[in-house]
């Protein structure tokens, strides 16, 4: 078992013994560091017991002052005896706490990666490209904010899912693969709570993860879905994602993530881009719109309509979308090109490149504009 997987339950045990969350979390981090140092020479027979012992000792060391001790004893006497609450509940409560609505998105992400994921502050700082001191402050501030929250309050699973989705979407930089970490954390969550949207998000992550090798070309440029080498998609991971999605849909409580995943599954199902079932995809976008009415969904739906019913229909659908939505211009360029208006398409691709939110997309859009300009023989 991976060392980090033990983190949430060890924190849970310390909290049940009377430690407050912030101190318990610090103590467990210390114990993890100690384990990395000591275990290679002396692997413990009971890794979790070892972590609990060492973390508890650290916690006692840190709160040794008399006042703190008295306070702790009072609290311990009010707590239910250890072992009463099942471990799964501890883990679930930690997810809720770390994604608490009083935290900003960045703080919730950082706290989740540390307290639930067991990553070090340095690893999180490297993954998000900020100085370690900044990340340390962000985490301790987040812990202060949630310090008054009782651990036995049920939370909103939706806030947890949004945090995990953010982690997944960050991809990977530094030595931590955040996408893989998000999948691991969502898997654990789905083992401690029976909720179709948790399954939906897990399936969504798996379906996107399965395409990872095909998404980026050797030179680092982005490969759009239609141009990906589908032979490089991981069919085992896709099959797992589809099975999980079907189980979720079978619970008959449709939500945003399940609908989004259904679309990803339809893409995964097509052995060639031309075999994509766009008509069904449009139906799922309609379903998504009923659930969220988000302008981003409207924009994606216009692309799907363009594929299902032709570029004219796509442009008509686009007319109802707010122009300020990110990637609006890129979609307009694509639909214009499909409609044969290469002059407008080239101009829109160039315009979209200027507005692109990341370098890979900007390069991709610039190449599209250059391709059309070259085809027209104008430079």
């Amino acid at each position, binding site marked *: 078992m991976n060392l980090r997987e033990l983190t949430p339950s060890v924190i849970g045990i310390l909290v049940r013994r009377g430690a407050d969350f912030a101190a318990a979390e610090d103590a467990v981090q210390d114990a993890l560091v100690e384990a990395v140092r000591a275990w290679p020479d002396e692997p413990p027979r009971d890794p979790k017991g070892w972590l609990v012992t060492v973390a508890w000792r650290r916690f006692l060391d840190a709160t040794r002052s008399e006042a703190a001790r008295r306070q702790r004893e009072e609290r311990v006497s009010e707590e239910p005896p250890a072992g009463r609450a099942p471990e799964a509940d501890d883990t679930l409560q930690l997810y809720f706490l770390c994604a608490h609505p009083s935290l900003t998105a960045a703080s919730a992400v*950082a706290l989740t990666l540390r307290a639930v994921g067991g990553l070090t502050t340095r690893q999180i700082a490297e993954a998000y*490209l*900020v100085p370690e001191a900044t990340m340390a*402050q962000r985490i301790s*501030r987040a812990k202060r904010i949630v310090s008054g929250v009782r651990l036995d309050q049920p939370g909103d699973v939706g806030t947890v899912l949004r945090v995990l989705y953010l982690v997944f*979407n960050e991809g990977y930089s530094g030595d931590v693969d955040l996408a893989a970490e998000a999948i691991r954390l969502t898997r654990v969550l789905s083992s401690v709570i029976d909720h179709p949207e948790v399954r939906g998000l897990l399936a969504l992550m798996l379906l996107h993860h399965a395409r990872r090798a095909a*998404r980026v070309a050797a030179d680092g440029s982005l490969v759009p879905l239609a141009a990906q080498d589908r032979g490089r998609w991981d069919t085992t991971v896709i099959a797992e994602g589809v099975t999980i999605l079907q189980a979720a849909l079978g619970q008959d409580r449709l939500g945003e993530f399940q609908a989004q995943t259904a679309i990803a599954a339809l893409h995964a199902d097509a052995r060639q881009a031309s075999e994509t079932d766009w008509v069904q995809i449009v139906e799922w976008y309609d379903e998504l719109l009923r659930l969220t009415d988000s302008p981003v969904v409207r924009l994606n739906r216009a692309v799907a309509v363009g594929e299902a019913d032709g570029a004219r229909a796509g442009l008509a659908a686009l007319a109802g979308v707010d122009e300020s939505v990110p990637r609006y211009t890129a979609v307009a360029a694509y639909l214009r090109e499909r409609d044969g208006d290469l002059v407008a398409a080239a101009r829109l691709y160039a315009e979209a490149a200027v507005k692109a*939110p*990341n370098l890979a997309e900007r390069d991709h859009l610039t190449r599209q504009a250059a391709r059309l300009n070259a085809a027209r023989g104008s430079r």
Partner: protein
Amino acid sequence: MGKYLLLKHYRGAPAAVNDVPMEKWAPEEISAHIQYMNDFAARLEKSGEFVDGQALAPEGTFVRYDGEGRPPVTDGPFAETKDLIAGWMIIDVDSYERALELAGELSAAPGAGGKPIHEWLEVRPFLHMPPTVTE
């Protein structure tokens, strides 16, 4: 969530409200200004939003490639360059609105007469990694 560059111009930005060159301030006004900037950076570090802050020397040199086996050509410094960057701060914040709020605070640094300079700072978002979920 995202990173933003707060760019401070020596020249090239619209004129500040309290537009008195620094060499005409009282020495204690200069000290107060520097203290404000340091406090601002320290506060951002505490809130977990600070990434980097640097100041640049005003004089720079233009350099370009001059062909195989030849040393690069240099030119300048140009005293009359229209746009001149004084320095920057990089922040990592939850929203664009938060970036604007912090830039506003930084622009309130005290200048001549101990009053806020109200200087114009340029806020530029970083391009970042493409997201994993794309459709």
